[in-house]
């Protein structure tokens, strides 16, 4: 995974609470294994029914067409487990979402895909929103993960809340599966023990090989 250290770029603001994963990537884009999810990001809001861009939607407006950071209100990414919501953001070019809170599964999925889900205080949300509004010519924000800070266009810095272990894994670009596989012996020992303790739970294990 590509490490995440610092990110500077245009920040788009969607000052809405409870933006759900169905809105982030609508179902029609999930029908194919290799759909262009970046194009599908916020598809229902971004395009008309016949597929034309809606000029009033923020990601269709310069300079936000090339946004790298998204600011949203609380409970961003609530709804379903669809990980494509994170892939859509990432493929569009957004590698950092800032919000006062996130849906649980979205939050997990973001870090697993190298996308920073940074929690900010409600007051910071308002200030960042205001700072970007006052700098329409250069709505650029800088995120420094190691320092846990986000710097507004007016150079004011705010605190970014990221659990230490999450931040370190992102900074290193660590693969979570490799980390777990390093514990393989311990997992195997656990499984051997519970097969004895709870044989009723693993009936398939007895007949392994002829279960297909």
């Amino acid at each position: 995974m590509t490490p995440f250290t610092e990110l500077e770029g245009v920040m788009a603001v969607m000052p809405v609470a409870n933006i759900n994963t169905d809105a982030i990537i609508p179902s029609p884009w999930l029908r194919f294994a290799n759909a262009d999810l970046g194009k599908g990001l916020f598809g229902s809001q971004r395009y008309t029914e016949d597929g034309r861009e809606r000029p009033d939607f923020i990601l269709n407006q310069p300079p936000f067409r090339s946004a790298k950071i998204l600011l949203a209100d609380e409970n961003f990414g609530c709804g379903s487990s669809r990980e494509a919501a994170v892939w859509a953001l990432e493929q569009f070019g957004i590698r950092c979402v800032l919000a006062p809170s996130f849906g649980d599964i979205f939050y997990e999925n973001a870090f697993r895909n190298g996308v920073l889900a940074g929690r900010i205080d409600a007051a910071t949300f308002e200030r960042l929103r205001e700072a970007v509004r006052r700098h329409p010519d250069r709505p650029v924000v800088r995120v420094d993960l190691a320092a846990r800070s986000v710097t507004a266009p007016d150079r004011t810095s705010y605190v970014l809340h990221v659990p230490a272990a999450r931040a370190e894994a992102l900074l290193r670009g660590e693969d979570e599966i490799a980390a777990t596989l390093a514990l393989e012996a311990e997992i195997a020992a656990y499984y051997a023990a519970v097969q004895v303790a709870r044989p009723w739970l693993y009936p398939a294990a007895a007949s392994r090989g002829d279960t297909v």
Partner: protein
Amino acid sequence: MMPENAPVQSTSGTALTVFEKIWNAHHVRRLDDGRDLVFVDRHVLQETTSAQAFERLARAGRAVRHPELTVATQDHVVSTAPGRNEHSNPAGRELLSLMRANAHAHRIRHFGVDDPRQGIVHVIAPELGLALPGCLLVCGDSHTSTVGGLGALGIGVGTSEVEHVLATQTLALNRPRTMRITFEGHCGAGVTAKDLILRTAGTFGIAAAQGCAIEYAGSAIRALPVEARLTLCNMSIEIGARLGLVAPDDRTFAYVQDREMAPSGAAFAQAMAEWRQLRSDPDAVFERDVAIDCSLVAPQVTWGTSPQDVAGVDERVPDPAGFSDAKRRDLAAAAIAYMGLEPGMPLAGIPIDIAFIGSCTNARLSDLEAAATVARGRRVAPGVRALVVPGSTPVRLAAEAKGLHHIFHDAGFEWRDAGCSMCVSINEDIVPPGARCIATSNRNFENRQGPRSRTHLASPAMVAAAAVTGCVTDIRRMT
């Protein structure tokens, strides 16, 4: 000091909640970042969230660790046209054939559309005896919490975690906080598990249980049949929970016994002895503890675009000005506009275009029976399209054995093959733009059932009542 890999102790000393007991039994170790590594007893796959996981697994040169603990089905993008096969929905072919090929290549059992055990993941997991009390079951789908109705931990995950489970048979998770919702009092006429959980969303909001494992408790829950408990747990995710469960009891054990993949004979007896321990200790402490008085709950119907936008069918569309919270006020106003409604109008009488009975929330046999009771001897109102989509092929076959398909056919309902269908607009069953659908599914989000679709969530009997009257109707007034 606690050893580094010890499971987290309960907040109340030695007294444990049922959730903590099951979690601890699956605890492999505590990770450095504070998360717990837990073992996954059952992994269920569906076609829309597994293709990329298999692709990345192959790219990394990793194997499936425990194919014998893994099962796959086809449900989301399948056609539900009667007599369909894997190729009937051209747009779904790619993902369906990938699911089949990946399962085959990794020796994973696969219940495809041609298998009599096929169905929506969350319907077949209990039905097959794959989900058991006290087990930890994972699926790349948010409504995995459904199996909590059996007293299992059902955890919905994203595709990266599907890949993680395939490769390691474990999950790294923050231990959810504990929450209890107690339901006391008798449910009035026409009030079902669906109404209870919608009322819960309406009362406490969609973020009420964020990061929590909910235990549904109380005399009203004990009185619920197992299929109704599955409905209740299904929508735990709609109030933000990580999972929801009902402690298993004799009803649960009777449900599980003799299921195809459940333990039998001496193994079942041993299992039952252990399952009897799966209840929260009397002095266990929940981090959040709330209650609902069932006697005050009317049959529910949603008026907005979030499950918390809900009211009794005898109530009115609210006036957004009545919400004290400014954000909620704006959201409610936007939702009412999207839904094409007016503040203050009665919910009963809103004309509908489509009635959808299906989904992992409400498409088990008892749900179809409830709908059939209303449909029997009546006709779908002119201009209304009404669909009944069983949650699984076994549900369809059981319903047909009881003659329910004749009742629905005679009343003018479509009787379709099993799948997610109109719940999610990722297959051929789509609500046309602007059309209004009353549905037994779990989500009324904007565009969920199709671009500009308008969704009202309700129970199966309420949806059947709307189908035959042509408008939202109080089931208690149907004689």
